[in-house]
């Protein structure tokens, strides 16, 4: 009887510790794997400087070898804005899409292993007329290009 009670207490104690760990965010049951790779600071960045810092980009240099493809000058619907970015910089390692006037600027980061063309396209949401910034990492250095897209109907809260 006594022994059983001891066992129960031990198990109970263990459970509490686990729960506490989970509550403090030490152990997150489902998104542990995703959160490992997901750059929280960068995606939460509210200003261009913060986001660049979180990405480790410092002060990127403008480069005309980065081009926008399939990106409209005027987007009628901010909820679906096609964006294509191509980089002609040798050894392009990653391409990031930032939207200057969105609540969180960083929209997406694409890591391109060797053998993948430095050209991607996707669709993003834009809250209002803003610059879209393409940030390219090549050979460990960061470059960018920007394009203004006018939005006639915002993509958030609409």
């Amino acid at each position: 009887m006594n022994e059983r009670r001891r066992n129960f207490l031990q198990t109970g104690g263990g459970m509490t510790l686990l729960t506490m760990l989970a509550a403090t965010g030490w152990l997150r049951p489902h998104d542990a794997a995703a959160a490992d790779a997901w750059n929280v600071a960068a995606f939460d960045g509210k200003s261009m400087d913060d986001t660049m810092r979180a990405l480790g980009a410092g002060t990127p240099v403008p480069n005309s070898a980065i081009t926008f493809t399939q990106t409209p000058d005027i987007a009628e619907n901010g909820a679906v804005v096609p964006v294509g970015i191509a980089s002609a910089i040798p050894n392009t390692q990653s391409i990031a899409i930032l939207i200057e006037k969105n609540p969180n600027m960083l929209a997406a980061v694409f890591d391109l292993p060797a053998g993948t063309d430095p050209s991607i396209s996707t669709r993003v949401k834009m809250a209002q007329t803003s610059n879209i910034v393409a940030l390219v990492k090549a050979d460990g250095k960061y470059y960018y290009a920007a394009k203004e897209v006018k939005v006639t109907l915002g993509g958030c809260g609409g």
Partner: protein
Amino acid sequence: MADPMRIRATAAGDSTEVKVLMSHEMETGQRKDAQGKVVPAWFIQSVTATCNGRTVLSAQWGTAVAKNPFLAFRFKGGAKGERVQITWADNRGDTRTDEAVIS
């Protein structure tokens, strides 16, 4: 479980062009519902594409990627008949993997 992705992979010369259409709400966490309550964020955080076990693209996404995301990219290699596999994971811990044969 989320709806399947639509993937099209086409061999063009020595590279393969992949187009993916995923089915996901991509809720930003900024929107409010009719009662004025904030709709919690629910979005795809990571996307990985592999071909023959080789990773050809990996991406991290934020909330600003549009609903039912579209993605297009090209990679060198990949012959007709080989398979391209795409996996996404969202912030609720849901994942989905689909594959397509290169044509």
